[in-house]
């Protein structure tokens, strides 16, 4: 491509639409059109003009707004697809195989296809991240390619433009003027807070140029935001872990080295409708129970500096705290939130050793399901020996009782009962509401008396060091939006020819009404010629033509 020489003698880079110096239209198409296209001041977008090396080609690809918009559309569609079924992080399965089975079982063939296509982990898939990255590249390159020429052009703009530039502006007027017209216009424009520059027989008044930088400021904010999101993937910046903590348990906090949490007590309080809560009585009657408070009383421990994982006998109490909804435990940059709960998980079971015939009790024993022991001695000289304990009994395999999980959801006990009457001992296998006597008919049995339960707290551990970066990115984004939306870049060009004729042109990037209002005041005080809105004229003409067609 060749440089373009304008009639005025100025040499413009290839691709320029309006001469950088005088403003003449440089292409035939533009010369014949009634109005000029003022986008990017008619400068050559750099990317369109060089297309040689592979780097230039990649650059040009990302510089295209069409490409940018396409990436956004693809991202939107992909993000929408990710919401059709729950993402894998939110399904109750943890291993590859069980996750796959969950989708297939719960959503049928749709779920199977969804999983096969990898949509179950869409937002962290390599192609989704790559697309977001490409959007970032597109933002940077498209902005650079437009911002640099626009900045240069606005910085170097001349006061005097060629009449052919002026008469192709949307706001245009010409007519006779007085000797002091230019001076008066200058004074009035300055009064209206315009920056006015004069050159020989003309002036350029300009206001709000910084509004043109709005989109680029906005893009900088977006890039910072995306950078913050990228940091989340780096270990140590972002933690979002869940922890089920049973009453009485002390556990290492996931992803928080050296800290431990103990659940002292979980409580769920509801509005009673009495006393202070009497005012809620009506609502409670209408909807049933209403929860007032979810609370986990915890103790936070820290291990000493030189301590090793596993050594838990020397933990130091850091603080006790009631974690409630929206009142997380905060320490060392981490926050622990109350998120979920399970009530009444079995904790201990009490049985009576009874004679099956007479139903006479020989005493009671309580088996701690969390920490059972080998032998339970009863007062009358009887003993119950625990031969096997299956906290979540799931059936027999090769004659052996099995447990599905380590949680006491369905405890099974293999016991040997020894009483003064039966010193040889009797074996029985007990599950909830069921007793099996594998070695023949027994004289004694364990009769269930009552059970102790405990509650389970679902806690979430969070740390997000990227929040300040996301905040700054968001703020800059909003500043850019405000800059571009609420401010306008207004310009007037006024020239007086040798014969006294005044040429007047105006341009703004938005809000033409405001521009005209400013101009009306200048026209009034400086006695400028009347102007027309040429876009309105064109629109009117088109409308009239259409109506003419209809009526004929």
């Amino acid at each position, binding site marked *: 491509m060749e440089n373009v020489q304008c009639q005025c003698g100025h040499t413009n880079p290839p691709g320029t639409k309006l001469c950088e110096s005088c403003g003449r239209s440089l292409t035939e198409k533009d010369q014949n059109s009634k109005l000029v296209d003022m986008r990017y001041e008619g400068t050559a977008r750099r990317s369109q003009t060089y297309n040689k090396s592979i*780097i230039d080609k990649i650059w040009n690809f990302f510089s295209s707004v069409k490409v940018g918009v396409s990436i956004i559309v693809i991202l939107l569609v992909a993000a929408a697809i990710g919401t059709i079924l729950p993402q894998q992080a939110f399904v109750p399965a943890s291993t590859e195989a069980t996750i796959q089975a969950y989708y297939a079982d719960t959503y049928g063939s749709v779920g199977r296809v969804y999983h096969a296509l990898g949509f179950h982990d869409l937002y962290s898939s390599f192609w989704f991240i790559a697309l977001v990255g490409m959007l970032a590249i597109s933002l940077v390159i498209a902005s650079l390619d437009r911002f640099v020429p626009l900045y240069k052009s606005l910085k170097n703009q001349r006061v005097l433009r060629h009449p052919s530039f002026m008469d192709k502006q949307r706001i245009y007027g010409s007519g006779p003027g007085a000797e002091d017209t230019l001076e008066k216009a200058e004074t009035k424009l300055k009064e209206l807070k315009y920056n006015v520059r004069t050159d020989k027989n003309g002036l350029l008044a300009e206001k709000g140029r910084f509004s043109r930088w709005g989109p680029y400021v906005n893009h900088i904010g977006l890039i910072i935001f995306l950078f913050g999101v990228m940091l989340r*993937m780096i270990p140590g910046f972002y933690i979002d872990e869940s922890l089920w903590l049973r009453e009485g348990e002390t556990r290492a906090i996931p992803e928080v080295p050296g800290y431990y949490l103990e659940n002292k007590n979980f409580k769920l309080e509801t509005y009673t409708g009495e006393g202070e809560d009497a005012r809620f009585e009506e609502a409670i009657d209408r909807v049933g129970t209403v929860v007032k408070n979810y609370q986990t009383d915890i103790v936070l421990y820290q291990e000493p500096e030189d301590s090793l994982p596993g050594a838990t006998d020397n933990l130091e109490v850091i603080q006790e705290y009631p974690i409630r909804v929206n009142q997380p435990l905060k320490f060392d940059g981490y926050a622990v939130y109350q998120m979920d709960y399970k009530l009444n998980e079995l904790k201990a079971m009490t049985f009576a050793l009874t004679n099956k015939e007479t139903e006479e009790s020989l005493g009671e024993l309580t088996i701690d399901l969390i920490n059972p022991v080998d032998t339970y001695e009863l007062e009358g000289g009887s003993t119950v020996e625990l031969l096997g304990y299956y906290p979540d009994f799931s059936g027999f395999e090769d004659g052996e009782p099995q447990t599905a999980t380590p949680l006491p959801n369905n405890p099974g006990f293999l016991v040997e009962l020894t009483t003064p009457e039966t010193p040889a001992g009797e074996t029985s296998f007990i599950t909830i509401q069921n007793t099996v006597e594998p070695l023949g008919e027994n004289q004694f049995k364990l009769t269930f008396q009552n059970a102790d339960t405990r509650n389970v707290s679902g806690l979430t551990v969070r740390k997000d060091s990227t929040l300040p970066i996301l905040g700054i990115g968001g703020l800059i984004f909003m500043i850019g939006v405000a800059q571009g939306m609420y401010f306008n870049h207004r310009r007037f060009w006024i020239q007086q020819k040798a014969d006294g004729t005044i040429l007047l042109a105006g341009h703004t990037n938005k809000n033409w009404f405001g521009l005209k209002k400013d101009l009306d005041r200048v026209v009034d005080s400086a006695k400028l010629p009347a102007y027309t809105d040429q876009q309105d004229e064109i629109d009117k003409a088109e409308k009239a033509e259409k109506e003419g067609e209809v009526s004929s």
Partner: protein
Amino acid sequence: MTVKKKKRSYIRAVILLVMAGAIVFTIYNSFAGGKSELLQVGDEAPDFTLVDLEGKKHQLSDYQGQGVFVNFWGTWCKPCEKEFPLMENQYQVYKDQGVQILAVNIAQSDYEVRQFAEQRDLTFPIVIDKTKSVMEAYNIRPLPTTLLVNPEGKITKIITGEMSEEDIASYMEEIKPE
């Protein structure tokens, strides 16, 4: 003009490279799981200390100079159950050649673990991670997970899932001190 063009090409190449690098970096990190201190083969095995069923303390670093076969397990885990007799067999072969087994139970009761060990006549030390802190330090997800620690204290292999007796034998051979 050509100098200017060259400079422009250079700047473009740098910008593109930096941004492509950032994307690759992000993707790599997202696949690494974003976990802090994710253990990898070649890493120093984090030291820990746990108590066995006899009340004896076992500290990993005490076994420096021996190969340590660290197995994370639970009584409810079927593959763990199948592995244990095989591990016991191989333990009998390799314990005199400087290979130690540390079976780390995940937070179960002494009673359950002892019953399990006694029924299977297990002789290698079984320790219980009561607070799951070792499990956290090692980022253990599925059970069973086995880590091979060589005599220098480095992790040479991480095995998730069930192992055959041949596997176990070859792993022990691998970490046997020379």
